[in-house]
């Protein structure tokens, strides 16, 4: 059984001749483990959850993670001596067993500022989640959290709009924004699609949204969609006197397609475009620059993230993805609902929201936040709660997430028994009555259902919504939970 306190062969070999003679050394002997290392303010610090193979010492495994995510190869190379190699070596400096999860360890690794190209998430991720995640001596590895130094933060431009300026552009303050994803996801013609946009926005939503897999399929080419959607948006704006928007998904096969679609959205006067996470880091950063030049809000759909964020023992935590996406520069980010149909423990999800919206994120272990993170005045990302939520949960959503969030009720709007406008009215009334009650000092967490029922007395659409969905909830155990919660949870 490997132990983090195993004392055999500890530490770097300081005799240069022994250190650089050809052959294979332990990673910790090569200088990737230093229990006395004090991270510099300019270091990036990563926290990995590692599961070493049977018989692999935890400290050696942590040193290997540091090595494989920075300079190491499997054997000693004399060419190291041509460089200031010690500064390029990442340094594992702390290893602890994960509470209540035998065989798993938390490993803290520090990276010097020189290691990553300025303003490049691609470069940073190529190191931190590159080869190391396939490394054989580890059964599994997960990047749990990351502290990015201010010196590196300042090389990124961050969100092109940010949630404060977004509110100013939309003229919407002091309440969550409301959205809905157009359904069905696939098959609507452009003309039919625009109908859903118009009805939802006129009924009271702020935003409508393309789905992640709506690009330009045979049933609806992208230009048709954009043209009909913008007619709905403008018509609804005139009917309500409000600024309205619809996230036009500009995701395409090539960057040429993406730019062409974004340009058309701009020409038509859309306030927002949308990208899917699967496009990749360079595409995201390029489009962030484009949005900055063109006064456009950038909505990021996290399509694909569940393949590497959900399982606790292997992959990348979504809180790390959130930090990277804020640096890369998105304005909206789907960050979970806690109460809806998709994965997400409430406190863990709140941790993601903090990373989106804080000026300074404080360490908060029950929320999965291992580090203080100074955002150095970087603009804030508007988190989006989307997936299986409805008006009957309004008190929970407002209590969990506060005002700075887009609440998206897709089925919960379009599936309303009296139609899409009625669905939108139900959501907007539920939202406004709950914000009003909270501001008046009411305990919405407990009195919420009664507040909704009272509002429904003068609002038939809300009554119908509560009658249809009031009892619906998705109570399944989350897989990604904090190891420091009041009740520690096992992972699998």
């Amino acid at each position: 059984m490997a132990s983090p306190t195993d004392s055999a062969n500890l530490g770097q070999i300081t005799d240069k001749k022994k250190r650089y003679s050809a052959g294979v050394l332990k990673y910790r002997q090569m200088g990737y483990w230093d229990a006395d290392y004090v991270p510099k303010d300019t270091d990036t610090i990563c926290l990995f959850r590692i599961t070493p193979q049977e018989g692999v010492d935890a400290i050696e495994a942590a040193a290997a993670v540091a090595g494989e995510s920075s300079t190491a190869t499997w054997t000693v190379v004399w060419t190291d001596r041509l460089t200031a190699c010690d500064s390029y070596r990442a340094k594992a400096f702390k290893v602890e067993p994960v509470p209540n999860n035998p065989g798993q360890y938390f490993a803290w690794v520090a990276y010097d500022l020189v290691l990553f190209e300025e303003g490049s998430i691609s470069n940073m991720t190529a190191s931190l989640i590159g080869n190391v995640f396939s490394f054989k001596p580890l059964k599994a590895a997960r990047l749990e959290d990351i502290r990015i130094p201010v010196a590196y933060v300042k090389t990124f431009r961050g969100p092109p709009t940010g949630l404060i300026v977004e509110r100013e552009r939309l003229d919407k303050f002091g309440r969550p924004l409301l959205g809905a994803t157009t359904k069905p996801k696939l098959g609507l013609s452009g003309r039919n699609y625009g109908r859903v946009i118009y009805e939802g926005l006129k009924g009271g939503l702020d935003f409508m949204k393309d789905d992640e897999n709506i690009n330009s399929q045979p049933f609806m080419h992208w230009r048709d969609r954009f043209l009909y959607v913008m007619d709905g948006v403008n018509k609804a704006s005139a009917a309500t006197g409000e600024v309205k928007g619809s996230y036009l998904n500009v995701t395409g096969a090539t960057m040429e397609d993406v730019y062409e679609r974004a340009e058309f959205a701009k020409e038509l006067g859309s306030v927002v475009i949308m990208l899917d996470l699967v496009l990749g880091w360079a595409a995201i950063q390029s489009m962030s620059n484009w949005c900055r030049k063109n006064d456009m809000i950038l909505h990021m759909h996290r399509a694909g993230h569940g393949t590497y964020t959900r399982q606790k023992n292997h992959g990348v935590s979504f809180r790390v993805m959130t930090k990277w996406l804020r640096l890369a520069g998105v304005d909206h980010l789907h960050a979970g609902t806690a109460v809806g149909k998709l994965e997400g423990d409430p406190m863990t999800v709140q941790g993601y929201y903090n990373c989106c919206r804080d000026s300074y994120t404080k360490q908060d272990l029950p929320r999965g936040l291992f580090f203080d993170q100074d955002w150095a005045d970087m603009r804030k990302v508007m988190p989006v709660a989307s997936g299986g939520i409805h008006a009957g949960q309004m008190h929970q959503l407002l209590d969990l997430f506060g005002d700075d969030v887009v609440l998206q009720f897709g089925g919960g709007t379009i599936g309303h028994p009296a139609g899409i406008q009625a669905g939108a009215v139900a959501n907007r009334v539920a939202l406004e009555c709950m914000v009003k009650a909270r501001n008046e000092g009411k305990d919405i967490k407990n009195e919420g259902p009664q507040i909704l029922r009272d509002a429904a007395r003068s609002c038939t659409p809300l009554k119908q919504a509560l009658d249809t969905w009031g009892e619906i909830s998705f109570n399944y155990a989350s897989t990604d939970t904090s190891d420091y919660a009041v009740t520690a949870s096992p992972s699998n």
Partner: protein
Amino acid sequence: MMTNPTGRITQGQFSFLPDLTDAEIALQIEYGLARNYAWSVEYTDDPHPRNTYWEMYGMPMFDLKDAAGVITELQACRSTFPEHYIRLVAFDSTRGIESVAMSFIVNRPKQEPGFGLVRMEARSREIRYTVHSYATDRPENERGGR
């Protein structure tokens, strides 16, 4: 009468609810004062969605700590401009926010004229849209029932 489900302009935090009483408005003001927001009274006869700068009925009340003072200003504005839109706006000066934190309508004209949508057909199937405020069809000094 506008054709949306509320029959009126839906800007601000509470347009879908029954009009707030002055007592209810005072509770909202207190919520803002507890957060050190500065309240301001603004009015307009042109509530176009992109008409950002409504007229200020005096400066934001930075040092006022009593909701009654804001209500007094609001009532004075209402009696001067009974047929205008009036909104209460709260400013938050916290670093990193430095913007409007709350905004809601507290007075409306009896008849809300609403907006028209002007479509200008452009190249190919493109359309250029203009939201037109019917309230501005009359000269400035003839609006608002004054």
